């Protein structure tokens, strides 16, 4: 009887039915819900960026200065003093092209792994998909990256390097770096909720990881064959090698990128699984 149906406007939330039940085991990820909360992710990202550069005289310029200063240090120590080979590329450009994706990864990882504990006041008071928090901290790192990319363009112009069509691969490589950070960040942020040891380990982990990636030295330093393959298990190896190739030419990433990609996939799926499994208890133990 359609005439009996009320004609009033029903707010979309009135029909929202929420089920309360014990959380058991593997909860599938509710991407639809995550999408509904996209504005929250946007605002959390925005907050992270805003707060980072508030009350700093140089403000957002720090996003540019940091990779620039690190490049200068690396160039002096590894380029000039230690004479590290750099595939025939000027050393500043060689190290900066790796530093950018590296810093994207490192800051995304650093921020996401402490994100849940840093937002514990939200966790214990309000419901929202918990994934929004590490996601937002990763997006905040991406914004920094995009700004610091300007430096790379400047240095490339200075050395008169013009990228070819290969540069179109960059977005994919950035995505791979982000997914790597997300995968590890999911593990570490969830672990950090219960074991605060994690936040002590993270800076150390990032440092070790940096030397395990071809940033200050070329990938050729690692002997080809089985060692190179093992080296490729570090997803950032593929990302960084790909970055150099896409911007500056040289050896294209080979099997390492495939190994890196597979590694990210494994880390990401297991990270999501662990995160979802722990999610239900965050509010109780954080």
């Amino acid at each position, binding site marked *: 009887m359609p005439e009996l149906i009320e004609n009033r406007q029903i*707010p979309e*939330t*009135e*029909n*929202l*039915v*929420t*089920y*309360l*039940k*014990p*959380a058991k085991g593997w909860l599938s990820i509710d991407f639809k819900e995550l999408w509904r909360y996209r*504005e*929250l992710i*946007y*605002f*959390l990202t*925005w*907050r992270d960026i*805003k*707060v980072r550069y*508030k*009350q700093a005289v140089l403000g957002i310029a720090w996003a540019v200065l940091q990779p620039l200063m690190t490049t200068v240090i690396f160039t002096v120590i590894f380029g000039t003093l230690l004479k590290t080979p750099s595939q025939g590329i000027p050393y500043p450009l060689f190290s900066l092209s790796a530093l950018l994706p590296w810093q994207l990864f490192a800051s995304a990882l650093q921020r996401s792994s402490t994100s849940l504990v840093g937002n514990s*006041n*939200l*966790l*214990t*008071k*309000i*419901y*929202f998909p918990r994934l929004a928090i590490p996601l937002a901290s990763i997006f905040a790192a991406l914004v920094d990256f995009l700004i610091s990319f300007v430096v790379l363009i400047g240095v490339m112009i200075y050395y008169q390097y013009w990228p070819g069509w290969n540069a179109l691969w960059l977005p994919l490589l950035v995505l791979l770096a982000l997914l790597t950070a997300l995968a590890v960040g999911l593990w570490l942020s969830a672990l950090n909720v*219960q*074991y*605060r*040891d994690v936040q002590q380990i993270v800076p150390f982990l990032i440092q070790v990881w940096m030397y395990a990636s071809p940033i200050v030295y070329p990938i050729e330093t690692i002997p080809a064959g089985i060692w190179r393959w093992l080296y490729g298990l570090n997803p950032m190896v593929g990302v960084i090698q790909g970055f150099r190739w896409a911007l500056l030419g040289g050896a294209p990433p080979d099997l390492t990128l495939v190994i890196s990609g597979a590694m990210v996939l494994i880390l990401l799926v297991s990270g999501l699984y662990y995160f979802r499994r722990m999610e*239900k208890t965050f*509010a*109780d*133990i954080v």
Partner: protein
Amino acid sequence: MSDYAISVENISKQYRIGLAQDRPDTLRDLLTAGVRKVGRIFQSNREGRYSDPAHIWALKDVSFKVERGQVLGIVGRNGAGKSTLLKILSRVTNPTEGYGEIHGRVGSLLEVGTGFHPELSGRENIYLNGAILGMRREEITRKFDEIVAFSEVGKFIDTPVKRYSSGMYLRLAFSVAAHLEPEILVVDEVLAVGDAEFQRKCLGKMNDVANEGRTVLFVSHNMSAILRLTQETIVLNEGKVVMRAPTPEAVDAYLNMGLTKAGERNWSEGELAGGDPGFRPIALRVRNPRGQVVDTVVAAEGFSVELEYQLNEDISGLRVGFYMMTTRGEYVFTTFDTDDPGLYESFTSRPAGRYISRVQVPPNLMNEGRYLLGVNASTYRIKRYFQDDKALTFTVDATGAPGMHWPEKRLGPVRPDLDWKIEVVEK
């Protein structure tokens, strides 16, 4: 569509309590626990999870339904499970057992200011906080002016909130929450924060929400607010629903519940060690006019305070007295059992034995609030036999006190029923 806004069945929530060895909080604990666990595999029993002493049930088998548009009160002592229940209803935490359904968006005034960032401006915080509470950006933009007007922060809207006074901060935070327009509003003890003006605003907003036909869950220790705003009330005790009844009945039952654990104070031998063995306090009790030992007394009825004690020797010139203090540490009064000259004469010397000194606090003396009782037993300027400045806390409820038709908190620790006359001097 169901007629119920909230329906929960047998909801239970279990928490672990701090037995350090049980829950590894650091990796070291985890490693040592791992070794122990291996040894335990052979004697594991599945029931153990629920019965072992490291776990407590914050809620046990709670079932109730709330109809659309109903304003339901929830009362209970501290630790009765009120906050846990609200956390489950707002999905912050999952129940350990049970099932529930919620129809509509849940907004809550306990989240006032959650996610506010001190470095951000008022404007930025409105958007951030709105998004956290589940508002969409266009919705916030639409209500922005209204929120600013309600909060009265005006021209400071672009100033970082860390420069706000605490009053401005609270008002801004509350205005955002108040404009959420959820189908279900949960209010937890908002009356405990902010000044009188702010509390009036909270109550006013709650009334509006209720009048618009939304569902409201109202949690409070303030019985008069519960009586004023709700028709029906649930009483929680030790994680269980012990009663659901029309509010006056439920409040009455709650106030008279045999909460003997509170309202009485005993001293262990350890606490008395070093004291004078001649005077042994046994119990300090607060009783309502019906003689029940209670944690909450009603100011309008009056109440009594008594100390039971044992004298192991004859003591002359002994006086036993109480200090009444607010929880902020202001003294309300001091009184001794031999203040009255008649009693002073007849008890110049008390032989060894067991005594009770009881004082009657008249109706309409104390204001509502939480109070601290101190005990003193001494002989004037000679010897102090026993003193405990923080012996017992109890609550005074304002139900039926003078001026209760205004929903405001009265200043001062006393709320006497004074004699007023209004003269018309000229018309």
